[in-house]
């Protein structure tokens, strides 16, 4: 087992003919992911190194049974790509595109709640179930199959921590990069719930950063519902306080948003917190 993707995943790539789209699609396929189709409007009938390109997601799903979509389209087309994939019955949408307007994401996330599709991202590196499937831009060679589940708001910081785990011989069940955008799909709590239910996952690493209140919510969930051990890391302990415009954000979250507040919340929930990526790996090993 693993969460969200595995060897049965049938991957479709929206925006497959773009430069980054083609590059990462082929890397994902080289990793062993079952990439069954691509979609680029106006390029239906072409192929990308043997992967058939369709005009619409519906056609691609009909022809190939794709159940997961990896999305690389430009930011201004991102919401539409989500609508198309969800309306076509794709189960998991992995949105790598960055720079998507917040209003588009609020509308799309609201729309997706009324469907059976699950979103990861946007502005996210995707996810990997090592040895099974890699969907996104996480470098597969730094990962190793094992029993640690990992969920992160960061991109490259995730790679860093995965790398440290792998170097200690600690493998991962699934590494999930949820992305750092303020409005996003799967968050800490969703991923933690899935890891808690996944038989292959024995412990979980949560990688947070300053801003928002995702970590505080994760801490609350962990203390109430998690039985598996959790190690956390929060980037930005030495970050200077940002310049503040208004009060509304603080009223909404009821949180200061500082890294220290998040570390405190995790520790109060019984989560061990590493001071740096290396210490995180050491705590998992301990």
């Amino acid at each position, binding site marked *: 087992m693993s969460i969200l993707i595995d060897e049965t995943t049938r991957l479709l790539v929206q925006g497959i003919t773009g430069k980054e789209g083609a590059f990462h699609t082929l890397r994902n396929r080289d990793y062993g992911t079952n990439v069954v189709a691509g979609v680029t409007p106006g390029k239906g009938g072409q192929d990308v190194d043997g992967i058939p390109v369709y005009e619409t997601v519906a056609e691609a799903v009909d022809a190939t049974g794709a159940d997961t979509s990896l999305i690389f389209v430009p930011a201004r087309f991102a919401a539409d790509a989500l609508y198309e994939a969800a309306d076509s019955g794709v189960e998991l949408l992995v949105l790598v595109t960055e720079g998507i307007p917040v209003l588009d994401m609020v509308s799309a996330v609201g729309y997706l709640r009324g469907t059976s599709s699950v979103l990861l991202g946007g502005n996210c590196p995707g996810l990997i179930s090592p040895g099974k499937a890699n969907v996104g831009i*996480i470098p597969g060679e730094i990962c190793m199959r094992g029993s640690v589940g990992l969920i992160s708001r*960061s*991109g490259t910081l995730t790679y860093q921590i995965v*790398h440290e785990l792998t170097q200690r011989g600690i493998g991962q069940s699934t590494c999930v990069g949820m992305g750092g955008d303020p409005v996003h799909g799967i968050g800490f709590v969703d991923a933690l719930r899935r890891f808690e239910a996944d038989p292959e996952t024995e412990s979980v690493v949560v990688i947070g*950063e300053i801003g928002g209140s995702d970590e505080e919510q994760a801490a609350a969930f962990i203390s109430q519902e998690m039985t598996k051990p959790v190690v956390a890391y929060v980037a930005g302990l030495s970050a200077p306080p940002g310049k503040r*415009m208004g009060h509304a954000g*603080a*009223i909404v979250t009821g949180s200061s948003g500082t890294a220290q507040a998040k570390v405190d919340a995790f520790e109060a929930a019984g989560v061990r917190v590493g001071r740096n990526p290396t210490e995180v790996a050491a705590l998992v090993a301990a």
Partner: protein
Amino acid sequence: MDLFEHQGKEIFARHGISLPPAAVAETPEEARRAAERFGGRAAVKVQVQIGGRGKGGGIVLAKSPQEAEESARRMFERGFGGMAVTRVLVESLVDIASEFYAALTLDRSRGTYIAMVSSKGGVDVEEIARTDPATIRRVAVDPRIGLKAYQVRYLTGHLPEEARSGTASLLPKLYDVLIASDATLVEVNPMALLRDGTVIPLDAKVTVDDNALARQPEVAALRSSFPVDPTQARANDEGLQYVKLDGEVGIIGNGAGLVMSTLDVVTQAGGRPANFLDVGGGASAEMMATSLEVVLSDPAVRSVLVNIFGGITRGEVVARGLLDALERVDADMPIVVRLDGTNAEEGRRILEEAANPRIVPAPTMLEAAARAVELARTSPEGVHG
């Protein structure tokens, strides 16, 4: 992107919101003349992209045109909260009966917008939110439906009777501003009930989503009025996220989380970061070169730590960018480079073959941080290209 109060109010006015007569002044004399037009007495308000003006002396109630001029002069000379001040807003005084608070903003945790009205305003509303939460009513707003009529009734239901209908007609207009301008914050503190029974915003804090500026050309054009640091501007033009800090270890990384973590490990190693610089995803050689130039333009920098873990960003591109930059800038300080991830081996090989004496390879992030901190201590001071 945070707008000046007067810019937010100009957007308010375009959405049919009534406001006190006001004028923007870019010199003390303009402030005096504006105050004269408003009958002598006027509020002089520093225009900055941060809050805290009320407590910090950024708002002066001038009793005469002379006082308005003097207040404006002090503001221009001293700046506010460490920021340069290039304009003040001179506003006609209104006859306030009571003050409230209204805001529309993003609720990240729910992925929706949220509208809030507090029956207490003009004071520390965060403190009120903690100590007396019942004074603040809030509702989630789905942009596919908009602010619903029943929500407006609820939001205004705890205000004094005489302020309800005025607030009820103001809120949908503020919501229109939020959506039409792709804002993530529209905050009015205070929102005032005047003696004549009207309800108007006395302040306007509007933050526009940076990701939406491409489709908000009018709003984006307001950027030209913001005070900018030239180094910052150069970084932004290249799509780099650069924040100047107070230390001596220059930091370049890819991805905000990794860069923040790099700042943390440098601090933990006893050093002080000179900056935060995120080259972003898929950095080109040119972006790497510009990054190095930007960081080196800070005279306080004694060593540089380049910490790249490649995903979209590729190791060989990073390596070539660094080598390019070192041909353009005369960097007489050590550049500790730590590369991992996509094509990292090729990148390391390129750097090794180039054998540039400035480049100090490091195998891990912690070792790179320790080395950069150590080199910053031993690096000769004040010798820059």
